[in-house]
């Protein structure tokens, strides 16, 4: 009886197994994309540079969710809470304690790791949609917690905190936007490579075995509880770093920036990018930033509905998101080479 009940609960969120190699792009493709990312800011307006920076920041946050869901098979609708925690940690340290902005990021990551790990402990007892609901509660609570009266002297309450935007160091002759772009690019790259390695490591294999079959994983000697909380912690830490970066780049934090809408946007980005495919995180991030703008330009009054239709089309035509598109493209290229 109990075994049957467990079955139905764990079956629902089952994610299609992803072979290890399919998690990343080929070396050649990666290098071309990297070169493009390095060169583009020289040729485009500062505003576009800013948008690209935001894509990378949201991309890091989506990637964090991807490790959790695509890697260890756990759902979270509470990523906005960790994002907010990271953003506020960075902002408060910079504004109230004059800490260098670059140094605030590891601290933001640590604080969020702690929060994620602690939250992961009790949340372990839940799985599938129940876990999603528990994290949902976290996302709903966060903006209100940030408004709390006794925190106001640091957080600025509902008014939020304005942060000084950093200039390029060592007198480099580039503007703030371009500097922050390259700064974010380096961090995004480090996190991306770190995540790929993590998922290829022993821990990554443990995550995936839990995702595919918890009972089998524990039979093979994987400490399920330990690895599940670890996945939560790592995901929260990376999300926190993304949040910290966003505080530096947007130069402002307020409780209203981190509502449940953000958590849903990140979830959406993961699905559009392809669950379990790490490069897709950045495609998903581009989707959640640019598609609402496109929807708005089609119809102002119905922007939400247009966005819904566009999203529906994506899910309907390419249910596995950007990953599917990439695979098809790869096959076509392969065919071309053969001919």
């Amino acid at each position, binding site marked *: 009886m109990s075994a049957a009940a467990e079955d139905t609960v764990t079956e629902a969120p089952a994610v299609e197994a992803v072979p290890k190699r399919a998690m990343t792009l080929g070396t050649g493709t990666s290098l071309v994309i990297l070169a493009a990312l390095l060169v583009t800011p020289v040729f485009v*307006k*500062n*505003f*576009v540079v*800013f*948008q690209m920076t*935001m894509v990378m920041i949201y991309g890091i946050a989506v990637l964090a969710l991807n490790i959790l869901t695509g890697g260890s098979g756990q759902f979270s609708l509470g990523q906005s809470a960790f994002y907010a925690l990271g953003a506020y940690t960075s902002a408060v340290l910079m504004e109230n304690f004059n800490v260098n902005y670059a140094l605030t990021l590891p601290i933001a990551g640590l604080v969020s790791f702690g929060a994620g790990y602690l939250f992961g402990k009790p949340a372990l007892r839940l799985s599938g949609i129940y876990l999603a609901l528990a994290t949902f509660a976290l996302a709903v609570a966060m903006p*209100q917690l940030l*408004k709390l*009266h006794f925190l106001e002297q640091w957080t600025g*309450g*509902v*008014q*939020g905190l*304005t942060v000084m*935007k950093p200039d390029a160091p060592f007198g480099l002759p580039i503007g703030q936007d371009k500097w922050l772009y390259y700064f974010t690019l380096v961090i995004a790259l480090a996190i991306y490579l770190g995540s790929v390695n993590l998922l290829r490591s022993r821990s990554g294999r443990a995550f995936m075995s839990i995702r595919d079959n918890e009972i089998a994983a524990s039979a093979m000697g994987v400490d399920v509880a330990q690895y599940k909380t670890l996945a939560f912690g790592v995901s929260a830490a990376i999300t926190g770093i993304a949040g910290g970066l*966003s505080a530096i780049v*947007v*130069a*402002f*934090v*307020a409780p*209203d*920036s981190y*509502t449940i*809408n*953000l958590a849903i946007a990140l979830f959406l980005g993961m699905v559009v990018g392809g669950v379990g495919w790490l490069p897709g995180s950045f495609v998903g991030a581009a989707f959640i*930033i640019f598609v*609402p*703008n496109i929807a*708005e330009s089609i119809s*102002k*009054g119905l*922007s*939400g509905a247009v966005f819904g239709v566009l999203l529906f089309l994506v899910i309907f035509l390419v249910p596995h998101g950007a990953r599917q598109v990439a695979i098809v493209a790869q096959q076509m290229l392969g065919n071309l080479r053969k001919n």
Partner: protein
Amino acid sequence: MLATLRTAAISAAVGAFLCTSGPAFAQKKYDTGATDTEIKIGHIVPYSGPASAYGVIGKTEEAYFRMINENGGINGRKIKFISYDDAYSPPKAVEQVRRLVESDEALLVFNALGTPSNTAIQKYLNAKKVPQLFVATGATKWNDPRHFPWTIGWQPSYQSEGRIYAKFLLKEKPDAKVAVLYQNDDFGKDYLKGLKDGLEGKASMIIAEASYEVSEPTIDSHVVKLKASGANVLISITTPKFAAQTIKKAAEIDWKALQIVANVSASVGSVLKPAGFENAQGLLSAAYAKDASDPQWQSDPGMQKFFAFLDKYYPEGDRLNSSVVYGYGAAQTLAKILEMCGDDLTRANIMKQAANLKDFTPDTLLPGVKINTSATDFAPIEQLQMMRFSGEKWDLFGEVISGELSH
């Protein structure tokens, strides 16, 4: 020889041309976003998200500028009104405003809505020296020309309104014992500060204060506590849901204090009706704009222009919605500024003209409420008129009162 002669003739002609056209060049001055034929206005408002009800303001303003364009534009230039959705999210507001300034190259950013969104873009716009005109929020901090010379407010600040209630009390009820109930956030605190500043040396008139959190389900206990203080005036600095609760509870426990409710909660439909009209009789508040549902304004020339505008350019707009009245007034103020700028459409001149409004009266403001600004006064509307609730509507009474500190 011939060649040199020709050169001389050409240079003379060019010289003459430069001389004649010189003064004309001097008169017409433009910054990015303005040309001989067009002025680009940037605008953000939540069309989606939790505060999307305010999207109506953007639609009204868009319709207003369409009307202006059909009537020939401003000084011969058409208005290009570029309005984006910020979904009431500060990071989105930053993105959209940067898009307006750097990509669409708008001359100025007009009437952005919400304290958080405006705070998020204020530093950026001031660093870029782009006017942040007539922000749609009641916080007092927008009136700070020394630190933020490119940001200016529009509607009366919460502090102004607080000071107006203080003035009323000092004049009409100098022996009042005042109890204050306020929401514990920037809105409530701004109000309370205005009230205390307005009472000047007599802040001791306030004998009891209670604050509540927006998350509290009911504020009944605060009302009971305030009644026990023996106060005979209750100032309710509350948002609509709590304002209705306060009115109802005060009637329930038979507290016959004179009650003043903040302008944000003066709505007949969403506050007084749910609280019960019989409980709201004699309630006081203040207003600065005409209420389109009030029969006394049906034949008012200003409101007739407003109704004609709605009929022709924005027929789907709800005339009972105060946001429509708001958008009309704000858009009219911007049109006035652009008219005053003449052919000098530089960002600096726009700020100069915005700080140079003298007794300007948009169609939708109450008679006697005038917009005045100066280089040191970036708070356009500072006057309100008291009103008393009787029957099922508000009756204005007394004179228009100014909330400025100095007067």
